[in-house]
């Protein structure tokens, strides 16, 4: 099915991308932190949509569950609990904004410039139809990537310990 020379797949991708980018910009530009977080959730949904387009259903679900569900809720809690929703963030100066804008623009320009050539050269490696399935993922994770998988557990543990360490109320004199 073609519309204006693009396939449906491409249309969906375009619209989804546009929405995602708009939401991402909203995250940055909105003044209220709570709004920002909510826009972020929307952005994550957009990204999850991309996963679906790539035939990675499991990843899409996980993405929504973890980021939009768990992490964002945590963010919201923190913001609300600490009453950060007030618009009291110190304003950046104009010059720094301009510099940031210019730099961002340049970065975009450069990355686009680099990736522009990609379409011609990229080998069209079409993944198998079941590439995004839990089963496939599991097979890969527990065969080829067993070791990283196990080590990631250590990584997470370390992060956990770190979080506790930071969060723990100091009872005695500083040990460090």
């Amino acid at each position, binding site marked *: 099915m073609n519309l204006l020379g693009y396939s449906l797949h491409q249309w969906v991708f375009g619209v989804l991308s546009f929405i995602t980018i708009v939401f991402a910009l909203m995250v940055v530009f909105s003044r209220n932190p709570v709004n920002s977080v909510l826009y972020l959730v929307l952005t994550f949904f957009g990204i999850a949509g991309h996963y679906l387009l790539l035939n990675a259903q499991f990843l899409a679900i996980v993405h929504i569950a973890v980021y939009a569900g768990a992490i964002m809720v945590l963010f919201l809690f923190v913001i609300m609990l600490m009453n950060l929703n007030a618009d009291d963030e110190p304003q950046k100066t104009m010059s720094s904004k301009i510099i940031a804008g210019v730099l961002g623009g340049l970065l975009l320009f450069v*990355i686009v*410039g*680099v*990736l522009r*050539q*990609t379409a011609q*050269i*990229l*080998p069209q*490696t079409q993944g198998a139809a079941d590439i995004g399935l839990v089963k496939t993922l599991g097979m890969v994770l527990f*065969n*080829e*990537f*067993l*070791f*990283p998988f196990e*080590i*990631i557990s*250590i*990584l997470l*543990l*370390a*992060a956990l*310990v*770190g*979080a*506790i*360490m*930071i969060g723990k109320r*100091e009872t005695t004199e*500083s*040990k*460090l």
Partner: protein
Amino acid sequence: MIALFIIIGNGLLALLAEIFKFQKFIFNITFVLLLAALASNYWAWQHPQAFAPFSNMICFNMLELVLSSLLIAATILWLFIQRASHNHQTFGTDLSSLILFALAGGLLLTAFQNLTTLFIGVELLSIPLYVLAASHKNSADSHEAGFKYLILGAFASALLLFGIALLYGGAASFDINAIQAYLNAQANLPAFVKMGMLLLLIAFCFKVAIAPFHFWSPDVYEGAPMAITAFMSTVAKTASFYAFFKITMVCFNAPHTFWISMLMAFAVLSLILANTSALGQKHLKRLFAYSGISHSAFLLLIIIAQQKQALSVNALIMYTASYMLSGLGAFAILVKHGDVISDYAGFAKRNPTSAFSFSVCLLSMAGIPITAGFFSKYMVFVLLLSSSVSIWVSVIAIVAALIGIYYYIRLITQLYSKTAEEPQGPIQTDNNWIALLCAIALLVIGFFPQSLGGIFTF
């Protein structure tokens, strides 16, 4: 490989200490287990294995064994520094486990064969350090350091990840040998692969604090607790550097060496910037941060001059070993006597032995014979001059080394200065033996450079 498991196990064990009330022994346990890790490395050295375990995710060959042993040995030394900074209180369980996990990350960085392992290694090394940098609860500086490190580190991780992704896009594999094969096969690399390579390298430049990605290091070093700074500046940086080295030597080497000119520019910039900046510093931690940047640049020169593998590897071992030893020796002094330079006036009168050790460490950093530092700098210059790199880079490196010598020597001058009043209090003979040990080790390596500088003869 066994060493890696021992260390991870040790980290897990440390977590249990508080529950089972054996915090008192955790230091000793760690010490013994790390020694065991070293021993296992030695055993592995004696019994080389031909197979690559875990689907070639990691591998401990000769080089990896040596490098990881260096990291482990440095961590053992560091343990004593940490204990000294604690005034012999109990050894924090969370701290020790985090350090051990970081060390495990370091080991992964030496042994990775796959970019996933590499990334996990980087994170495993970094995350505990973000936390530890901020672990000085009562200090705003410490929190600021941790925060800065985290934010900037996340930026670097993002670059790393982006780079890996782009590389995967080209090579369709995470395996470094596969990537190397892919790179070899291409006459012209697509721009995005180049970009991936560069982003990957830039991420490492950040990790080892190469200008212009070095900004975090003076601030973080200054804010972080002294012992953590010691760990960051020695073990962590060295481990990152091993990965950097391996990526460039195994994966990115010829035929596509366009990235060398970028690294060369960074190295030159670092040499100039770090050494000139170090001149005006009044705090030792900041000074060592800048000197560390300069050392990173010298190490980077080894990569830039990648010509003769055996020599490069030997130089890497020599340089990192002497760098870690001198750094740890210096920090062993710092944890006891603070980091304000002006406090060290007339230090030699109060602490003759410590002043001696400190001086040897500084001389080694400066690269004065007959310390290990001399041979490491010397090997760098040999590499550099034997490569096709312009001679001007060598000249700049020489000038940078000279400026470095200036501030190290000025520091020694401060230690032995006569301007200070009479020694306050009795002469201390408590012998900071870690510093002394480092100093002696530096001298011994200087006398027997073959011991470290001639391990490999590929």
